[in-house]
């Protein structure tokens, strides 16, 4: 189902196999390569076993799987939020093995962005401050771009509000706006619509995909929903910590 990065090639030049639906093959520059990665939490069973995926620039990939299959863990590893026990992850030419804590933080700050199911906005900041926060932290705040995102997300009227004053759908739109304001190379979304009703979920997903396409950002999205997964370029399925 999913292309497995060839360990014999470097990430910038590796070829990926795309088998989603049409079994088409494309030669593209790989942005992300997860290569035979394993992860076990202390005292627990293995969460990931030899998992491998790859993702090209501007491409979108969904990760589906049962609860506990390791999809969120894989997302966290790609976000450099946690370490892994074996294998290798390479993103944008950088091997995670070479990164210390500061390097991982810099990677999250400058090149990837995250959207969580629980929104995880900063409650003490207004919507406007939340939207610009990540970009300003990375030193890449572009007010015009942020204004465009704000408009597209329909948040212009609530910029002075605090997160607790917004609906769930609005909060998730703020989270997407915050993530996209930094113009990340890779957007990582963990069940971004899991806390929303069907209508809101559909609207939020539309907006996210639109912004991703607009900015040329790659997307790795974890979801339970096959209908959401099917809207992305490719799909990968995790089962028992392995990419099936």
């Amino acid at each position, binding site marked *: 189902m999913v292309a497995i990065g060839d360990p014999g090639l470097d990430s910038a030049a590796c070829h990926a196999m795309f088998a989603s639906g049409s079994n088409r093959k494309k030669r593209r520059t790989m942005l992300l390569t997860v290569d035979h990665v394993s992860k076990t*939490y202390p005292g627990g069973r293995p969460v990931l076993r030899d998992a491998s995926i790859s993702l090209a620039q501007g491409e979108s990939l969904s990760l589906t799987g049962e*609860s*506990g299959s390791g999809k*969120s863990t894989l997302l*966290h590893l790609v*976000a450099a*939020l*946690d*370490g892994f026990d074996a294998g290798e992850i390479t993103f944008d030419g950088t091997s995670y093995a070479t990164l210390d*804590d*500061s390097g*991982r*933080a*810099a*990677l*999250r*700050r*400058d090149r990837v962005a*995250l959207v*969580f*199911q*629980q929104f*995880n*906005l*900063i*409650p*003490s*900041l207004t919507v406007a*401050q939340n939207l*610009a*926060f*990540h970009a*300003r*932290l*990375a030193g890449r705040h572009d007010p015009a771009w942020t204004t465009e995102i704000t408009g597209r997300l329909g948040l212009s009227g609530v910029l002075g509000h*605090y997160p*607790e004053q917004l609906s769930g759908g609005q909060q998730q739109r703020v989270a997407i706006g915050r993530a996209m304001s930094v113009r990340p190379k890779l957007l990582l979304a*963990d*069940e971004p619509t*899991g806390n929303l009703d069907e209508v809101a979920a559909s609207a939020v997903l539309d907006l996210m995909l639109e912004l991703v396409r607009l900015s040329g950002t790659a997307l790795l999205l974890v979801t339970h929903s096959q209908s959401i997964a099917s809207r992305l370029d490719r799909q990968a399925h995790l089962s028992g910590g392995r990419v099936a």
Partner: protein
Amino acid sequence: MIRAATLAFWSHWRRHPVQLLTLVLGIALATGLWSAVQAINAEARASYARAAAQLGADKFDRLSRSDGKPMSVAEYLTLRRAGWQVAAVLQGTLRVDGASVTLTGIDLVAAPDLPAIAEASADSRIAPLDALTAPGLLFANADLARALGDRPDLPPVIETALVPPRRILTDIGTAEAVLNSTGQISYLLVLPDQPMGRPPLTEIAPDLTQEAARGTQDITRLTDSFHLNLTAFGLLSFVVGLFIVHGTVGLSFEQRRPLIRTLRALGLPMRLLMRLILTELLLLALLGGVIGLALGYLVAAALLPDVAATLRGLYGAPAEGSVSLRPIWLVSGLGMAVAGTLLASAQTLWRLSRLPILAAPGKHRWSARPRAMRNQLLIGLAIVATGIVTFAVADGLIAGFALMAGCLLGAALALPPALAGLLVLGKQMARGPLAEWIVADMRTQLPGLSLALMALLLALAANIGVGTMVASFRLTFDGWLDQRLTSTYYVTARDDAQGTELANWLAPRSDAVLPIRSAEITTGTYPLFVYGIVDHDSYRRHWPLIAADADVWDRVMTGQAALINEQMARRDGLWPGSTVSLAPGWEMVVAGVYSDYGNPTGQAIVALDRLLAHFPDVPNTRFGVHLPADRAEQQAEALRAAFDLPPGAVIMQQGLKAQSRAIFEKTFLVTGALNVLTLGVAGFAILTSLLTLWSQRLPQLAPVWALGLTRSGLAWLELLRAVTLAAMTALLAVPLGLVLAWLLLSVINVAAFGWQLPMYLFPFDWVKLFALALLTAAIAAALPMLRLRRLPPAQLLKVFANEN
């Protein structure tokens, strides 16, 4: 059902042992310092009572002349012959090692059952008759007995713990000889078991008046203010400790709300649940109370010797320096622990009892609600206003304490709104996303940290206030010592004859020899010492007058006027121009008032010839000698050798100043120790708040970590936040501390001790305290910070977990 519910309910503590420890320690700290102060107060009061009981004299009515003059033996005999069961008492002052001690001589034939003498005689296996026959016996405690042992001019001394410090008890005959007051009687004790049908006093001795038993009233009145000061400190610590309890109980029930909801959904009645909660709180209160009592006992035992020294030094109160366990203290300490815990938990319990069964588990309220903040500010200001109004309409110590309590409590309540206001300003000035987040996040932290910050504010204000008072006092005291102690050295003769010889020997060898002669007079309820001085430039140039008429010294030295000390001036409302009654039939105009720190009694200064005109027999044994300092030691040695004087008979000025300063420092050792302890409790309050809020901080920090900050960076920012909040609190504590200092110096001191002190500012001390506050906050925040630095990413990732 009860057992299952109890196990489920209490399982919370197994998962949160730090919270449990915090709660118990909070109760223990609140109880500990309060109990320590209570133990000190109880011990001191027991000492006064013991002194009165052992001396016996204070439990009887007294007869004395209404004109205040000494009584004659004839009057005593008249009463005895008429059937009145009375015992004569002669009381006077004796100089021992440069300090005054009270010598009380009682007619032991008329009052043979005086407990102190009866028991001491039995213990020392002395025949009761030995006390009555020449040369007699003196009874004194160990310290005084040792000092008296060096005096060959005194009768043998029996050492006994039953006589209070700085007092000598003896037979009246012996007292007459020692005080050189033959045939004089200060007053008569009216013994119990008076015969029926005795003639009324108005018939046989119309000049005498009967005064009801004084008991420990006088000492109690004198020392009440000191004990009130200690109690205020104890109460402050108690309140700070309760802040910790309030915060921890609130958090523990907030975290147990899902469990409570589940238990109630499973059929546990609210009434039973409340009983379980109360039982839990009661058990924890008792555990914390027992630990607190142990702490309190240790603190009291460490502080009591200094407190006793202070009480003896400042008030002449017969306090002892050891602490004993009293059942009432144990019971009241536990009672305070239980009452305090219930009080601190009342709000939480009230909310819980009204909680709908299906109420969702509450989230901690992170945003500081403007309306609640505004209300809190208004309540704080109202409390300050209440204190001011009370002070305006009432007088004295209680009014002063009401104002102090109003200012402290009101300011503590107004602190969170004030900090929130400052943070709003800070937010507007913040540049950059991190700075904005830090300031905004501090604002959301305020509700959780406000109690700890209020505790810190109170502790810092108390430190600044008491520190300013002590330092102002020290500065004034040093200057005052320089003004008062102008003689190069001081010498005390054995008796008048030797005094005359000394004066003659010194006169040609010194620049000046100034006699120090005084008479003790009991007027009304307190003793008055009247000093007679000769005219000398050192008085005119140096004497620390705080209020004076023109030509004050000329008027005093020509016998037209007197000087009085500040205590007497304030107590009796006597200022320049007023008339003071120094003795029956002797009134003088007050020409000046001088500061006289550390003296519990009234004092007046007149020209020596005026004193001798009224009291021709005042001893002439003490002299201040003026000469160039480089000759002083040599001359003192020659004087000692020529007159075979004991070492304590000659005291150099520098030695006396050093001794006075040492007594001063010792006096304020207790307040210093309590200051440090209160600050320590406040630091602990910050630590416990940060630890108990720890689990609720992670959802605030994890998103920022995910956006590209390291754990280490976040940990440092946490420390920075705690230190910044402490710094802002410390800045606000400065004006509050200065208000407190002013209250202590200008209101409490005047009401309690009778003297007002000028207020000096010590900015360097504030800087040191500011640094100490930052250090306290940094130490308190260090543990949570280290925990965050070492936190495995998996713990932070739980914040983002989707499957609940």
